[in-house]
């Protein structure tokens, strides 16, 4: 599948990809990460999160990972997710798209900073 066909990404999808960029996480950890990353502005609810995860799995942006963290930190109920290479590609494409938009906004005087 071509990365550009998925653009523009829904914001929730992008945030999930960001959350998985550094490490594999389970669902609740993703929620916490997104919340802290956005300074409390975006609080994902379970329904929204798992619906997105479901779709992202189908689109091949993320995958379930077999490897588990150390047994003490592991919770058997949880499933861990990892970003795929395709997911990285799409995240990068989205980031580029957003940067391009900001550049255009600056040129028109809508965003702070220089063009």
């Amino acid at each position, binding site marked *: 599948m071509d990365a550009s066909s998925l653009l523009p990404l829904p914001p929730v999808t992008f945030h999930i990809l960001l959350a998985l960029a550094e490490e594999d996480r389970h669902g609740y950890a993703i929620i916490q990460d997104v919340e802290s990353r956005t300074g409390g502005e975006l609080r994902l*609810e*379970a329904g929204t999160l798992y*619906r997105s995860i479901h779709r992202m799995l189908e689109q091949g942006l993320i995958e379930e990972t077999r490897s588990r963290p150390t047994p003490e930190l592991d919770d058997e109920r*949880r499933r861990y997710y990892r970003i795929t290479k395709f997911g990285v590609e799409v995240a990068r494409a989205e980031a580029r798209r957003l940067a391009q938009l900001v550049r255009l906004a600056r040129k028109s005087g809508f965003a702070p900073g220089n063009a």
Partner: protein
Amino acid sequence: MFLYRLLLRLFPASFRAAYGDEMCAVFAARRRSENAAMLWANTIPDLVINAARIQLDVLRQDLPWALRSLRRAPRFAITVVAVAALGIGAGTAAFTLLDHVLLRPLPFLDPDRVVLLYQTDLARGYARFELSPANFADWQAASTTFESSGAYGSTRINLTGEGDPMRLNMAAFTSGVFQTLGVEPFAGRVLDTADDRVDAPDVAVVGFGLASALFGDPARALGRTLNLNDRVRTVVGVMPPEFSFPSREVALWVPYRFTPAELSNRRDFRLAGIARLRPGASIDQARAEAESIATRLQREYPDDNRGLGATVVEMRAALTSPQSRVLVLAVFGAALCVILTACGNLATLLFVRVMMRKQETAVRVALGAGRERLVRLLLTESVVLAGIGGTIGVVLAVAGTPLLARLVPDALPVADLPGADLRVLAFATMLTLMTSIAFGVGPALRSYGRLDVNALRSRSATDSRTSRARAAFVVAQVCGTVTLLVCTGLLLEAMQRVESVDPGFRSERVLTLRTELPFPKYGSIEARREFYSSVLDRARALPGVVQASYTSFLPMVFGGGIFSATTAGDPGEIAVSIRFVTPDYFATLGIPLLDGRDVADRDDASAPLAAVISQSLASRLWPGQNAIGRQLDVEVVGRGWTVVGVVGDVTVRGLERSSEPQMYFPFQQQQDLNFYAPKDLAIRTSGDPLTLIPVVREIIRETDPQQVISDVRLLDDVVAAQTGSRRAQLSVLGIFASVAFLLAAVGVHGLLSYAVSTRTKEVGVRLALGARRQDVLRMFLGQALKLGIAGAAVAVPLAYAAGRAMEPILFGVGPGNLVIYAAAVALALAMAIVGSLVPAARAARVQPAVTVRNE
């Protein structure tokens, strides 16, 4: 936690299986750290919205599958769509009518607080009639339960000066009426208290339709003047299009003004009264107060107000007669029968389909499809089919609204055509969904209960419980059909009974039209005599004209004109219906002259007052004696009328109601009562009356070019109009009955087909063992017959109950008419047999060798 899991069931099972545990974990973790109320406030919308989105996603995935499998079974799909369309169409149409007449709030401010006022005279059998100006004024002054009140009346007037002269319905309102109704004008203003004064300028408020017709843009009507019955009025306001009080025909409103003389008239009952209850006052209080005021007036005016009571009725109840309510409910009941029949059909059809697809389902199960997935696929198919059927049904219902509109009571001040709007569409959608879910999922859940591949693969005899259920459905359909047929038959007989009522005159080949002579132009009897003579002499000279004359009002077009008659030697008063006529009126209408003579030219102002009375009046006052020469006084009309002739009675108030006895007076002896100056022309011809219309118009034009001609029609049509609404009722119910009949036939056919297809082995064995083909035929026909009889048996008491409930509209036809029942049952049984013929014949043609071998 339990609640969370419960809400999770909103999601598809597969999703739940994959993520349910995690979602619970997240929720549990959250609950430890957050405020419960806030958490739920966020969680519930999240769950509901996302569940809905996911369900929609799955639906979108399933849709191509569903369409494909439906395309592979076109006959099934078309049958289901047709059945659903008929059921939903009938239900939507009936609900539209019900809503329009009974449920929808009347288009006024707070309509539940608006009431209509009436006088009563229970001793003489009048439960409601109009108020007199004096009574209304006294009652308005004394009443404490109303926050506003007003009086109104309507009449017809001529509008001239704007193109061709037009005849319009006009209503006169005191300012209190607009205040009570509380409707804002579209432009300008409504009438206010300043307009009530007798010396105030002549103004008018016009309706949206009239303003548009006359001036294009309704707002441009403001400030224009209109010439109404030779009186110039200035337009001060335009009402919005949906305002139609007191009736849909009223085109404009003028102030109702009373001179002091008029205001003291206690016997001219011509006002309708309307009022708004004060906040906190109940209608019972208002009614009690009205009665006590009436009693007080009886004491104060013992002659004028003798026996006069008063009552207060809620507006909707006042304007919809019990008959129209029964009718609307009957239509709704009929629609329910059709819907139930349709649902029964759908259940059978869908169940059969599930059974037929057992092989295919077994393959899917073997390939790993879960039970929920299969049910979901079936549900998608059902939703698609019901959706298409529902859409067609709504279109059918909308197409049928003109027919339905004829069932809306004339007096109800609502829009002409009940429209299909949001409420109706919501009802139709709900019906559609319920149908599709109930009959799509029901059979699926039952049959997929055990996903045992082997069980699915076998074509063994079906579960006896489900086959009994299916038989019960067919019985229910037959029952519904028979009930509807009986009700239709009863209505048909009622209509025939009404049509067979003798109106008292002969209506064939009589042309009628109305020339309402305006006052003051025709204020003198001389002027009117010249007009009538000119028209009648010339009309009588036309070839083919047998007789011609004028009367105040033709029978059946006006029920008023009731005054009290008294005679010496009889203490009582009799209410009579009065008319002023030209000579030869009775000959023109074919009313038999039983004794004495007709009114004549010599009965003019200088001659003794002469009257012709109807037979019933003569028998009442002078039973067994000669009425000729007796004297009568009639209030307001005159004293000292001598009876010169007796004629047969006519049904003045129409075929279905009882009428007061009639009195006819020579038009030349009319004093005042301008409203009753003869205006209806009747011409009896020997040929086709319609051919005379242009000539008669010409005669009237030559007599007075400014005279407006209206209501040109045959007397036959006047009589036929009496049964017009019954014919509409019959059409609607007849259509419903036919639809139910068709659906039941399809249901019988479907059931028998299925029965035959599952029992081919049994039939083959029987034939191999020596049974004759006609035994097989008889076996299946007998099954159908049993279903028919069972359905008919259940239907008979049901139909009887329905007939009893419909009594108000049956015009005396009792619900226990054997012929109708027998006919309905016979039709149903015939339908059962015909519906089963094809499958039974197929069964009889089974080749035993083939079927036994296939096993």
